[in-house]
Each structure stands twice: as structure tokens, then as C-alpha cells.
């Protein structure tokens, strides 16, 4: 998943064989220099079956294992408003409810006996299934996997169990302050009905039937909406033949086009919301909606965020709020972007109640500095070097390589997207970063959400905008 930080996906290819140990070892780590080395990661084969199923294949014979993943054009964004949670349940019961002629119990038994891992789930914007198996058992694993993917049985008892577990999860949603603040923040930004923010309820889950699951699967899971990736110990020609035999007769269908409407414009001023919970810390999120990944400002904004709070130890927020002031263990900022819906930019921390105001003030001050001052030469150089030198980790294993290609294709991005980003990072100037920060960090319309003791918070938060309480539904 593209987490906005370029860094999660970053890399380039600087390497050499281990440098001569002797002299370098004695030198000062602050002045050490290393030669860059080109690393050309292996490129997977890409094929499209007649029915539209896309397949990426990359052999890797180090270990007797095969991993397969399927990325599916479905997801919770398709949930009807009165049945939120339908995609999630469909994904989970595809795995647990039997299929392909096997009962649920037979599937569980067979997978456990042969140490085969199969997972199936549906997120908000896609479905994900995976198979991980010793290569000697691959054909057996693939047979079961394909049965669950193509003809899930959705056994009633397993549907009921999944519903009960989901409902229990909803009952326990308000147990964890970190979970509360994350969810409420996103709901404030997009609105509670938006596909990116909306949540299932006990009522919506109760209303979902086995027939709904069957219909949702039939309506959304088609070969022409699936990208398969296979890595590991196999021969490409043999694998392709096996995949054709397994999926070749699967009929095309009408795949839903992933389109998510933008959230409505917000009020254009800062708002402050709090949730009352008896905690020792205030759990904070401060931020607003942001750009999409294909936006031309993405690279400079991502680097601005990196310097502000995205790069852990190296970032300003970490140094200011944690290192210098000792006010938080986990503090930073994130730019979470994708191509399908508006991104989110946020600053976050947990801090003891009495330092709540100080932490929010530091957020605002650091954000303003990004908007009004050029970053230093050092900061820019550090950000670029970190990006370029860690680029190789995006391609460090065959499954990472194939995963990148699949992600990019699913999002409709060019296959050299990362290399393009890298080139743009290298070319960035301090002025580019300032311009992006000025344009995309909005200190006059921040959304602040805090979870903590309700008696004290309103007073502590009152200096930052109009304070209102969010009353949580007592889920239990």
C-alpha cells in the first residue's frame, strides 16, 4: 500500500561489494563515503490469459516454497449503505466457508495437515487473497485456493460465526483509545457516510445474510478483475500451464470500476472534537484532507512531510516533541495517499494530559515553519540520501518486486512509477518543498481530534478552535 511516504516504497540502486574493511573501519562514521552500485532487480514475466486474468511470475529457487497472491477489483467501497461490512464478511467467509467441492471442515483440515497458508480478505478498495505453500504441495494448495476463490460455499454456520465475531469486534471498538482517535478523525475528514470512512454497525452486520455474500461474490469477483502474482520455486512454463488449467475456463464478467467520490468541501475553518475516555494520555490527531498520489505536487509534498514528521528519528516533530521535550513516545506526521480517493495528511502523538496543549502548539508551530521557511540544505540532502540509498529495499525480494508491479497496475500507474518518483526526488529544490507546503498544509482549517478525560479536555483544547464532544454510541 502506498503510504504517502515515498520512503515506504523507495529505493535505488547503490551498491558495491563489501568495502575494504581495514581502513574504513577506523574512520569516523560521520565522514564515511561509499560507492554507489547499480542493482538491477529481476523483472517478472507478465502474461494475460484469454479471460483477462493478469499473471506476474518470478522464479526464485533458494527455498522450496511458492507464494501466490491475488489482488481483486472489489472491496468495501461497494457495500450498500444499509449493509456496511458486506465486503469484509464476504472476504473472510470465502476463506472459512468451504468451496470448490470441499466442506469448510475439509478445507481447514487439508490446509493444516499440509501446512498450507491461505488468507482471504477484502479491504475498502480491493480484495486480497494469498497462498503460501511448500513447493511440493503447490498443486494441492492451488486447487483449494482456486476452489475458494471461484466457488466459495459460504456454509451457513461459518457465515453465522463470522457475523458474531464481527459484532464482537464492533462491541470492542471503543476499548482502545488509539483505535477510537484514528476512526473518529477519518470520519471527521470525509464525513461518516463516505466509503473511505464509514463503519459497520451491529445493526448493519445483523442484516447481512448468506445470500448477500453469495451475490456480492458473484457480482464482483471475475478473472478480468484479478491480478495474480506468483514467486518462488517453480518453472515458469509449468506454472503457466497449471494456472491456465486452473483458471482458464473461468468466464469473464463485468468488473466494477473503482470510483470514489470526493468528500464534500469542509467549512474552511479549524474544528476541534474530543471523545471522553478515562485515560492517562491524550491521543491526538491533527490534520486535513490532502492530494492524490498522481498529483504533480505529490513528490515535493511527500518530502515536506518527511522532513516535518514522516521520517521518525530524522524528522522535526520527532526531534522537537520527543527528543527535546520528552513529551511523547510515538510522534510524527503522515501523508497517506492513493490514486482513488483524497489523501489524508496528519500529525499524531499520545501525551500525558497536562502536556496536551504544548504538543498541539508544537504541531502548529512546526507546520507553520514548513509553510513559511525554506528547509535547510542539510535537511534536504538527508531526505534525498535516505530516499535514494534505501531504494533497494523496495526490490529486496522477489515477492516485494512482484508486489510493486501489481500495486502499480491495480492503481493504473506506470510500471516505472517508482523510478520516476526517484528522479523527481533527486531533482527537488528547497523552493519546490516550500511551495508545496504552502499550498497543501492548511493551518487555518485543521481538524483536531483528541481522546482523553472529558472533564479536562475542553479547557485544554479551547485555544485551537471550536470544541465539541463526539459522543460515542455505547456499542456494547
Amino acid at each position, binding site marked *: 500500500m502506498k503510504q504517502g511516504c515515498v520512503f515506504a516504497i523507495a529505493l535505488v540502486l547503490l551498491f558495491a561489494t*563489501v568495502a575494504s574493511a581495514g581502513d574504513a573501519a*577506523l574512520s569516523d562514521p560521520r565522514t564515511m563515503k561509499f560507492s554507489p552500485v547499480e542493482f538491477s532487480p529481476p523483472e517478472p514475466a507478465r502474461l494475460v490469459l484469454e479471460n483477462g486474468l493478469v499473471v506476474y511470475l518470478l522464479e526464485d529457487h533458494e527455498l522450496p516454497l511458492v507464494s501466490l497472491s491475488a489482488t481483486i477489483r472489489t472491496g468495501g467501497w461497494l457495500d450498500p449503505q444499509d449493509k456496511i461490512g458486506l465486503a469484509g464478511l464476504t472476504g473472510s467467509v470465502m476463506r472459512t466457508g468451504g468451496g470448490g467441492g470441499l466442506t469448510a471442515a475439509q478445507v481447514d483440515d487439508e490446509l493444516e495437515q499440509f501446512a498450507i497458508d491461505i488468507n482471504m480478505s477484502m479491504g475498502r478498495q480491493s480484495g486480497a487473497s494469498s497462498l503460501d505453500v511448500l513447493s511440493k504441495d503447490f498443486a494441492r494448495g492451488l486447487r483449494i485456493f482456486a476452489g475458494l476463490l471461484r466457488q466459495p460455499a459460504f456454509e451457513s454456520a461459518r457465515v453465522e460465526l463470522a457475523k458474531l465475531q464481527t459484532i464482537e469486534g464492533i462491541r470492542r471498538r471503543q476499548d482502545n483509545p488509539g483505535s477510537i482517535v484514528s476512526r473518529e478523525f477519518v470520519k471527521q475528514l470525509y464525513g461518516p457516510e463516505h466509503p473511505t470512512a464509514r463503519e459497520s454497525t451491529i445493526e448493519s452486520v445483523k442484516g447481512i445474510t448468506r445470500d448477500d455474500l453469495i451475490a456480492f461474490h458473484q457480482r464482483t469477483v471475475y478473472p478480468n478483475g484479478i491480478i495474480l502474482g506468483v514467486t518462488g520455486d517453480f518453472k515458469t512454463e509449468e506454472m503457466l500451464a497449471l494456472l491456465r488449467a486452473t483458471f482458464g475456463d473461468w468466464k469473464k464478467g463485468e468488473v466494477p470500476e473503482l470510483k470514489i467520490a470526493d468528500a464534500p468541501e469542509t467549512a474552511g475553518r479549524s474544528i476541534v472534537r474530543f471523545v471522553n475516555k478515562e485515560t492517562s494520555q491524550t491521543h491526538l490527531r491533527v490534520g486535513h484532507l490532502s492530494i492524490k498520489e498522481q498529483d504533480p505536487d505529490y513528490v515535493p509534498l511527500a518530502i515536506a512531510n518527511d522532513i516535518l514528521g514522516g521520517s521518525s528519528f530524522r524528522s522535526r516533530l520527532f526531534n522537537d516533541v520527543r527528543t527535546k521535550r*520528552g513529551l511523547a513516545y510515538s510522534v510524527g506526521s503522515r501523508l497517506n495517499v492513493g490514486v482513488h480517493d483524497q489523501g489524508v495528511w496528519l500529525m499524531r502523538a499520545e501525551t500525558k494530559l497536562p502536556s496536551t496543549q504544548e504538543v498541539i502548539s508544537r504541531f502548529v508551530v512546526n507546520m507553520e515553519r514548513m509553510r513559511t521557511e525554506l528547509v535547510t540544505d542539510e535537511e534536504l540532502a538527508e531526505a534525498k540520501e535516505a530516499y535514494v540509498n534505501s531504494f533497494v529495499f523496495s526490490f529486496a525480494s522477489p515477492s516485494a518486486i512482484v508486489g510493486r508491479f501489481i500495486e502499480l497496475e491495480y492503481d493504473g500507474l506506470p510500471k516505472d512509477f517508482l523510478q520516476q518518483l526517484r528522479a523527481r526526488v533527486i531533482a527537488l529544490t528547497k523552493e519546490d518543498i516550500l511551495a508545496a507546503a504552502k499550498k497543501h498544509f492548511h493551518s487555518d482549517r485543521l481538524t483536531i481530534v483528541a481522546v482523553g478525560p472529558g472533564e479536562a479536555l475542553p479547557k485544554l483544547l479551547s485555544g485551537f478552535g471550536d470544541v465539541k464532544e463526539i459522543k460515542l454510541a455505547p456499542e456494547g
Partner: protein
Amino acid sequence: MKTTSTFDSGAAELIKMKIGTLLRASRVTTFLLALAFSLDLSLVLAGPSGLADRVIEHKLANGMTVLMVERHQAPVVSINMTFGVGGVNEQVGQTGLAHLYEHMAFKGTRTVGTKNYEKEKPILDELHRVGTELEQRQREFAKRSEDMPVDANEKTAIEKLQKRFKELQDQALQYVAGNEMALLYQRHGGVGLNASTGKDLTRYVISLPSNRLPLWAAIESDRMANPVLREFYKERGVVMEERRLRNDDSANGLLFETFTSAAFRAHQYGVPTIGWESDILSLTPAATEAFFKTYYGPGRATIGIVGDIDPKQVITLIENTFGKIPAAPPPPQIVTVEPPQRGERRVEVEFDAEHSLAIGFHKPALGHPDDYVFDVIDELLTDGPTSRLYSKLVRDGRLAASVHSDASYPGVRSANLFVLSATPLAPHTTAEVEAAILAELERLKMEPVSPKELERIVNNLDADMVRALRSNSGLASQLALYQTVAGDWRYVLKSRDKIAAVSPADIQRVATQYFTKSNRTVATLIKKPAEKQLATAAPREVIR
């Protein structure tokens, strides 16, 4: 095993669920891991090109151990540096010290992290003296003020000290090159920089482009020899926030802290690794430095290095850097042994969260023959959808939403606990779930386990071991871990055979011997809705 980290890399919140999030159900057992000999897997692990032959071992004269595996898929390397020190080595009144030192280890050395050490040093020395005296007098003052009128002279003296403390802190700050060690790693493409502290071990990890190994060796040999405790009081504040986050405001954190301290009366395993609040707030620079000197000698360190390396060059590099650090005397032995439990212990903890449950039974440490039997029981009870407790309580009984077990909690080197934990499915209660779990434990005593169940466990262990070899960092971690806790990384190979040899009769015997009422500790989390009252946060945090 429970650990606590320097940097919360897992804090990323998933605002949007997108592609690429193939969440794999992680196996509950983290500590059990065996290598395979069966079928063609034997070639992977013990065969001519298997793990047994791929691990290169090197011991330095100062006692440090290096374990290396070459993997040339990409020009990267993962390093895991594990020290045989942890919460068990702490003294009364100083809980949390091992973890605080781990945080301080990121503050640099006499060269890294400072703009001028010569000028910085005297300021730090005075700061630490003043800070220590200030805190002692503040504590004394707070204690006396409770039943006596305030001593105005003492109050003035404290305020003076406080002023001096702040001045010194500001002066010291001028010489700090903030987070320079981490910055160096990041500039050179390092990822996954972190450290963690557990009851038995403290671990420092990083992955780098492989030609940057000399940078790693320079930084790490320097911090093993010359650490400087700068920004001490601020970092102690950070650790306090970590405690609030993980233990005070977390239902599970609080449940397990309460559970563990009820189960152990004498042994240090009963103390939370992060430390008790009042102890953390009283830790001094002097105690922290003494802890380093006592426990961080090279003889306590094992380094796992896996990736694109030339082992001969790595050995030369390490000899030229770490090799110069003198050997240290062995640290004091841990003498405390937990006495046998003589009666069930039940504790409750109230928190604003739904009910949950933990049950523990005392059992022997790693290496004891019965320990392998517990590994099998662990898998049998909760690993996968066909496991006994999952199928009984979750799938069929619908009493619980989830159930887990851990065969070695909270550490492995000393006698520890077999733990079962579960969350009830409403409207069922923790009492019903507890009864159902205990009934399954009784069944282990009465009925022999089927050969098919045992075969399944071994199959899964073998496959998981092969999977563990996929990641450089995972393999580096396993090698350093077993070298440290078992004295030999080959434990992974040997334990697999021991586990495969466990018989149905062994399981019956062990269940009968250990799963008894008097050996049991039960903790339940009771829901207590938020009350309208002002939280009394951090009353004792006197220095900022």
C-alpha cells in the same frame, strides 16, 4: 516473550485499507521454532547446502560471538545484535532500567551525537549531579509535606536547584547533535532501525545496503565502548509516555501487567519490563551508567548478520573494530528462584474495556525436557482453525471471539508460564470461557492425543522453519536469539527433533503435573465505564 521498543514503528494507522495488505495470520507461537529434517526439507535446513552448513560462526577473543549467513539476492544486509541482558538483571527500586538504557543507547558516543564532547562532558556531569540531588530532595520534601507544615528554606533551596538544573539542561542542549546516530544510518539507506528490551534479552536491529557494513561496525563498536548519556531526563519522560501508552491506557497491557505480577512473587519475571511508574521516575544517570558497565560487555553480545556479505571480510572488519574492546568480567548471577505456587491466585483489573481473561501455569525454562512438551501443547491448543481450543470455544461453542496461548511467557531463560488468553463472545462471561478452557486441559490429562494431531504439528513446524529462512532480518534474529538464550544457535535444529519425539504419554504426564489448580493464576479484565473525574496524570513527574 514480551518486549518493549525504542521506536514505535508499528504505530502506522491504516487510514485506508488498500491493496498489498495481505495480512497473514501469524502463528501464535513466537518462541517455538524448529528446523526440519523430514522429506526434502532436510536439504534446506540440514543438508549439504542447508542452514547447518551455511552458518559461519566466529568468536572474538573478548567473548563476542558472530553468526553469518550469505544470501546474495539483493545488495542488502540485516544485522541483529543481541545482548544477554534484560529486565531480569534489575534491582529492586530500579525496574525499567534495562529498557531505559536501551533508549539511552541511541543518544550517541563521545564522537557521534555531540558537537564538542570536551565542553559537553563537564556540563553533563554537573547536570546529572544536580538532577539526582534535586529529585532526592523533592521526594523527601513531598513526603514530609504530607504531615508537616512546609519548610520554607527547603522550598527555596529546591527552587534554586531547579533553576540550576534548567540552566544546565539548556547549556547541554547546545552541544547535542540530535539523533545523529539514527541520522547516519538513515542517510546511508538504513531501514528498520530499532531496539527492543525483554526480560532476558536486549536487541538492536538495522538493515542496510551491504556495502555500508563498515559504517555499522564503526557506529556499533563505538556505542559498545563509549556511550554517553545525554538528554537523560527528557528520554526518561519519553519512556514514561511509552509506559502510559502500552500499559496504563491499554486494556491488554494492564491485564498482563496485573496477571504477571500476581503469578510471580519472587522472580523478576513478575515485574513489567518497562518498569513501575515510580521506579522509572527515580532512575538516575549513575545507575544507568553502572548498568551499562556491568551488563554490556562484549561477552554478552551475539551478532547475527545475514545478507549480501563476504564472511571473511566481515570477520576482518569486526576484529578491527569490536575486537579492540576489552573483555568484561562476568556480571552477577541471578540467584532468585520462584518458589512453588501453593494455591490458586485470582486477580481482577478494572478498565474501560470489554472483558477478557488470562490463565497461567508455572513451568520450567528452555532446555528442560518438559519445555518441548509445552511447545506441542501450545500448537495443539491454539494454532490454526482446527486446533482444540479454537474449534471448541470459537468455531463450535461460540463462547469466545478469540483464544491464544504462549508456551514461554514472559521470558525463556528462567522458569516461566504457559499462558492461555481469550476474549469472550457476548453474552458469554469470562467464567464460562475459563471453565471451557480448563475442561480442555482436563481432556489432555485423560485422553491420549491422536497421532494425526501430532503429525500435523510437526508438519507445520517444519514448514514454518523454512518460511523463517526467507527473510534476512528474521534469520539474523533467530540465530542471535538461540545463541543467546540456549548458548547455541543449533538449538533450533535440535529442538525440532525433541518436539517431533514428544509422545501422547508425555503430553498426558505434563498436563497432569502442571495444569493443576494450585499452580494456576487467573486474571480477568472487568469493564468499568469512564467516570466523570479529572485524571490525575503524572503527579510525580517533577522534572521536565
